[in-house]
C-alpha cells in the first residue's frame, strides 16, 4: 500500500494542480485570469506527460558510453513542441482579450454578458 502511494502520489498532485487550473478557468469572470488558469492547466498536463517518461536511475537521454539506462525521450520531444505552440496560442488568446476590451470596454465576462443581453 505504501509503495503504491509513493509511486502514484506525484500523479495525484499533478491532477490536483490541473484541477486548480480548470477551476480558475471556469469560476473566474476576468478573461485574463481565465487564460492564466488555462495556461496552468496546460502546463500541468505537460508535466504529467513528461513524468510518464521518467525512469528510476536513468539519466538524461543524451548518449554517452558511461551510462546504459536512459529516460524516455519520446514524451520530452512531444511536450517540448507543445510548450512553444502553447505560448503562441495563449498569445492569440491575449490578442482576442485586447480586441474584446476595445469593443466592450471591459474584460469581465459578467459585464460583457450583461451588455449583450441589453441589445
Amino acid at each position, binding site marked *: 500500500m505504501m509503495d503504491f502511494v509513493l*509511486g502514484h502520489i506525484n500523479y495525484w498532485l499533478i491532477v*490536483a494542480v490541473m484541477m486548480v487550473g480548470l477551476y480558475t478557468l471556469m469560476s473566474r469572470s476576468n478573461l485574463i485570469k481565465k487564460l492564466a488558469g488555462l*495556461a496552468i492547466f496546460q502546463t500541468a498536463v505537460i508535466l504529467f506527460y513528461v513524468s510518464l517518461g521518467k525512469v528510476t536511475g536513468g539519466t538524461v537521454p543524451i548518449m554517452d558510453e558511461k551510462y546504459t539506462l536512459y529516460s524516455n525521450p519520446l514524451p520530452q520531444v512531444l511536450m*517540448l513542441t507543445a510548450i512553444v505552440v502553447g505560448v503562441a496560442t495563449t498569445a492569440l488568446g491575449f490578442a482576442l482579450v*485586447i480586441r474584446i476590451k476595445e469593443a466592450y470596454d471591459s474584460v469581465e465576462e459578467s459585464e460583457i454578458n450583461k451588455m449583450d443581453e441589453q441589445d
Partner: protein
Amino acid sequence: MSLAVNLLLLVFLLVMALAVLKTRHLFAMAMLFGLYSLLVAGLFVVLDAPDVAFTEAAVGTGISTVLMLVTLASTKSGHELVSSEKSRAAPLIICVVMGALLIYGTHDLAELGDASSAPHQEVAARYIEKGQEETGVPNLVTAVLASYRGFDTLGEVTVVLTAGIGVLMLLGNRKKLRVKELANGK
C-alpha cells in the same frame, strides 16, 4: 531522494496555483504565474528533461509572463472585479468530480520511474538503441524531434507561424473598431 525533491516542488506548485487562483491583483497574478513556470522548469530537471526545462524556463517565466503584463497594461485592468452573482458551486463540483475520476484513472498507471512499464518498451527502446547509430546525433531528443518525427515538428512550426499571423491580423491594424458604438449608431 529525487522523489522527495519532486514532491516538495509539486507541493510548492500546488500552493502557487492556488495563489494564482486567490489573488485579486492581476499584476501579482502575472508574477506568481512566472514563479509557477519556474517551479515547473525545476521539476522538468528532476524528471531528466533538461530540453523541456530550457524551453519552459524561457517561455513560461519569460515570454508568457511578459505577454500577460503587456496585455494587462494595454487593457488597463489592474484588479479583478468581485462578481457575486456567478455561482461558484457548479465549477467546484465539476472539478472535484473530474479530479477524482482522473485520480481513479491513475491507479492503472505504472509507478513513477518503473523501467518495465509499457511506454518504455516499444518505440522508445528502439530510439535509445539505434538512435545515435542511425542519425549520428547523441542527443536523442534532437534526433527524435528533427529526424524520426520530422513531419510532426514541421506541423508544430507551421502552427507557431499561423498563431503569429493570427495575432498580427487581430492587432496589426492601428484603427480601433468598437463593436458597441457601431451597433448603436445604426
